[in-house]
């Protein structure tokens, strides 16, 4: 299987001098296409930092991050932003939808930012919404949707451009358990279709859908389980 993401000896510090906090400490991780990884761990253990670094939101203090064969540190800001748009789909606990745009426009935003012609971006977005059973709310605004619907829109937005890597930070944290299950099923389906994904979560039920469960404790990453599928 293709290595979609490779982190090698990644450490990351916040602050300086006596106030320096090591958020990640010597983390190495390879995620392949078709693989769903769950990262568990207590609050402040470094889960969000790990996702931010894997997604090129920030460079690690030490170590290397390779997405789809490209070392992120080798890229300038513009090229890095392009990798983030094309190769990586982000899903957040609080959905991060843009309130003044309709559902359809929200899904189309990353495609348009990636210079897709508007008509093509809207057509692809409409197809993505249809796949998620959201076509009937395409012209609604996020505030008129339930939490579960908003998260499905966020997943449609994150995956409309068929990114090879999906990074989800507590995607079910704000949802009831049955809605949460439907959300993780959507992520699982994307992974089974060939994406790679890392999901940071407190939710053991969500983690149980992963192929591998890893635990972060004080910045160290430990392999916890591996599921044979």
């Amino acid at each position, binding site marked *: 299987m293709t290595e979609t993401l490779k982190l090698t000896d990644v450490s990351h510090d916040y602050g300086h001098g006596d106030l320096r906090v090591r958020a990640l400490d010597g983390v190495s991780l390879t995620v392949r296409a078709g693989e769903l990884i769950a990262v568990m761990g*207590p609050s402040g253990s470094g889960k969000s930092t790990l996702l931010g670094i894997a997604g090129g939101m920030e460079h690690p203090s030490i170590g290397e991050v390779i997405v789809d064969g490209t070392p992120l540190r080798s890229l300038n800001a513009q090229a890095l932003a392009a990798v983030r748009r094309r190769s990586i789909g982000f899903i957040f606990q609080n959905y991060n939808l843009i309130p003044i745009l309709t559902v359809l426009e929200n899904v189309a935003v990353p495609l348009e930012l990636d210079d897709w012609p508007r008509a093509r971006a809207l057509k692809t977005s409409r197809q993505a919404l249809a796949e998620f059973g959201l076509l009937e709310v395409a012209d609604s605004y996020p505030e008129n949707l339930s939490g579960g619907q908003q998260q499905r829109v966020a997943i449609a937005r994150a995956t409309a451009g068929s990114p090879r890597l999906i990074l989800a930070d507590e995607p079910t944290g704000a949802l009831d358990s049955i809605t949460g299950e439907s959300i993780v099923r959507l992520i699982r389906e994307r992974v089974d279709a060939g994406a790679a994904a890392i999901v940071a979560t407190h939710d*053991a039920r969500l983690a149980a859908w992963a192929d591998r469960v890893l635990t972060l404790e004080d910045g160290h990453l430990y392999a916890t389980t591996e599921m044979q599928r």
Partner: protein
Amino acid sequence: MSVAMSLLAMIAQGPRYGYELRAEFDRRTSARWPLNIGQVYKTLDRLEREGLVEKRSGTDAEGHVFYTVTAAGVAASSVWIQQADPVPTRARDDLAIKVAIAVTLPGVDVTALLRAQRREAITRLQQLTHESGGEPVRTAQDLASRIVSDALLIEAETQLRWLDQVSDRVRDAIARGISLAIPFDTERPRRGRPRANRSTDPTDIPGGKNNDD
């Protein structure tokens, strides 16, 4: 008890025979706790002795013996379905004992123990999730199946939450400078005597006649 009352509740809906009851029980509980037919007939005999069901005389064309509910059976079934079950309490929680002992013994790697136990709990959750398939509920049988699998999933999840809580407590205790190990009492307690009257007899050793284990 729940098997007997489940069979009774199904007979209360209309006459049933043994193999039918076994199949219906398994179907409604996703065969998670499958019954053997001997168990079914033994249970039916008991229900009959207790006057809750009656065996019909004769058989159908296929030789099935049917059981019907009595008035007392209807009442018992209704009470069972409507009355809350007591929350199960375990006489002893072996894992809680193990962790409490391990945490308070000097030189034990508690972190490794908790990590190993987490691995067990997550593996169990993964297996149950895989078995349940996670498909959305579309039929009454899907619903029954999810009710059973949710009970097992939540049990495994609860253990995981408890392990998280233990980790947090241990971390917090260490951060507050609390020494985790409880030193062994140098004065050995004797059976049946208050601590104030401790013996100084050097022959009073654990495992001797005064040991109450």
